[in-house]
């Protein structure tokens, strides 16, 4: 089994999986506590529009999808802030728009439809060096925003208390939304557009079952995310099944186990 990880594509897969697993489950705690799960799902679908645009322009899909999805995320946050429409409505509108754009662009370049499928269902073993650079860039950005954890957590707990303490809550909201978008894009090659939302939410949900504090929830979530990736890759290699889906199945198993063994809250 360990010999498999001497192969360059397996090393890339493991590294990409670990980086994306850690960042997605880190931001997942905010997504879960702010009840933004639908945003994760919507942004994953928005990423399809970005990937399609990248393929259409014959550029690296992830490097086009990254700014595209961040822009969509900021538009969603802006509409939510400026209007009385619910956040889910804004997500619904922009995610449909992006998917529609993706479908039209892929129809115009039908020779790339197979590449698009890799993003739809994930293909971690096909992670290219360029994909890995995109993942590393997002991981670096996530690392640079670690200092904002306390502000995001405070506003997650109570926006008014955070605002009364003069924190730039609105700016922080935009930053968080943009980072979630970036993480979602970096994860689509690993688990696929259809499963990215689960990748964000499940480790954080499992962590919530054990955590007494938000700091604990954050740490447990990252650990569960990493465990899901490692075990998922191993099972996927051993049984020759799709890796992205296997990672999600392992994370789901961790969640179900957590439900059984976590102290009743």
């Amino acid at each position, binding site marked *: 089994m360990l010999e498999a990880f001497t192969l360059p594509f397996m090393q890339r897969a493991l590294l990409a999986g670990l980086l994306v697993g850690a960042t997605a489950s880190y931001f997942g705690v905010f997504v879960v*506590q702010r009840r933004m799960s639908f945003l994760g799902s919507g942004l994953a679908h928005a990423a399809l529009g970005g990937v399609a645009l990248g393929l259409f322009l014959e550029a690296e899909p992830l490097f086009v999808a990254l700014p595209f999805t961040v822009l969509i995320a900021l538009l969603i946050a802006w509409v939510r802030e400026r209007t009385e429409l619910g956040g889910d409505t804004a997500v619904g509108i922009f995610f449909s728009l992006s998917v529609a754009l993706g479908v039209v662009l892929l129809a115009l370049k039908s020779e790339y439809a197979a590449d698009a499928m890799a993003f739809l269902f994930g293909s971690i073993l096909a992670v290219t060096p360029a994909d890995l650079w995109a993942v590393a860039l997002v991981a670096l950005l996530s690392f640079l925003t670690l200092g904002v*954890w*306390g*502000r995001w*957590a*405070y506003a*997650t*707990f*109570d926006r*008014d*208390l955070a*605002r*009364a*303490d*003069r*924190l730039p809550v609105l700016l922080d909201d935009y930053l968080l939304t943009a980072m979630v978008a970036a993480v979602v894009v970096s994860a689509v090659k690993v688990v696929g557009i259809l499963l990215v939302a689960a990748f964000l939410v499940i480790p954080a949900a499992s962590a*919530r079952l054990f*955590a*007494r*504090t*938000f*700091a*604990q*929830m*954050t740490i447990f979530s990252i650990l569960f995310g990493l465990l899901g990736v490692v075990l998922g890759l191993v099972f996927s290699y051993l049984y020759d099944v799709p890796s992205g889906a296997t990672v999600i199945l392992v994370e789901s198993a961790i969640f179900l186990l957590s439900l059984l063994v976590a102290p009743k*809250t």
Partner: protein
Amino acid sequence: MEAAVEFEHVHVRYGSYAALLDVSLRIPEGAFVAIIGPNGAGKSTLLKLILGLLRPSEGEVRVFGRPALKVPAEWLGYVPQFKTLDRSFPALSIELVASGLRRRWPFRLTAREREAARSALRRVRGEDLAHRRLSRLSGGELQRVYLARAFVRGPRMLLLDEPATGMDVLGEADMYRMLEQYQRDHGATVLMITHDWEAARHHATHVLVLNRRVIGFGPPERALSDECLRRAFGHVGHPHELSFSVERRDA
């Protein structure tokens, strides 16, 4: 005496709806002000203006002689309604108290923060609550933790939004004792929204009767006059007495 809060012709409008109309007010520093008024009277809006959470549509709000948004956050201690708490957020009481000191959510408490938070909890007789989860606290216990959070930074002004909600009679009396003690020790100004006119009469130095406009402001005996109460509420009986009489009639 310096004014803690000054409102000059303040209006707050949400579209065509006016939450506050032409409010002019001067609250002296060190006052204990009970703010009363019917639902939708603009009481919480008034606190939010002072905290800098809202900007007036017209007029000016000054706090300790400065525009509300320029007031250092540590000068103000805010106790929100405990009903607004998200009980799904995993947190310990000591973290909530320490957040008042750090103005961030703490990942890990320093020894100094831990001691300061414990000391604030002792002040509200809640030391045993320090390591309890917020989701497990009763309404009264939660109010004490919020109060400790407000005290921990030693603010010049306390702003409390219906702090007695969820408390029993003894807990309520205890809370007023703590507030008065803090006020004496720090010369602080206290602004408190309440529906309890009797508490306002007994504990406040000033009562502000609000119904989108200032109906009355001054010492309790003047502001709680029949005329002011009738203008604000349409009747002069205490709400508790009214609800009691309705229940008795229904029975």
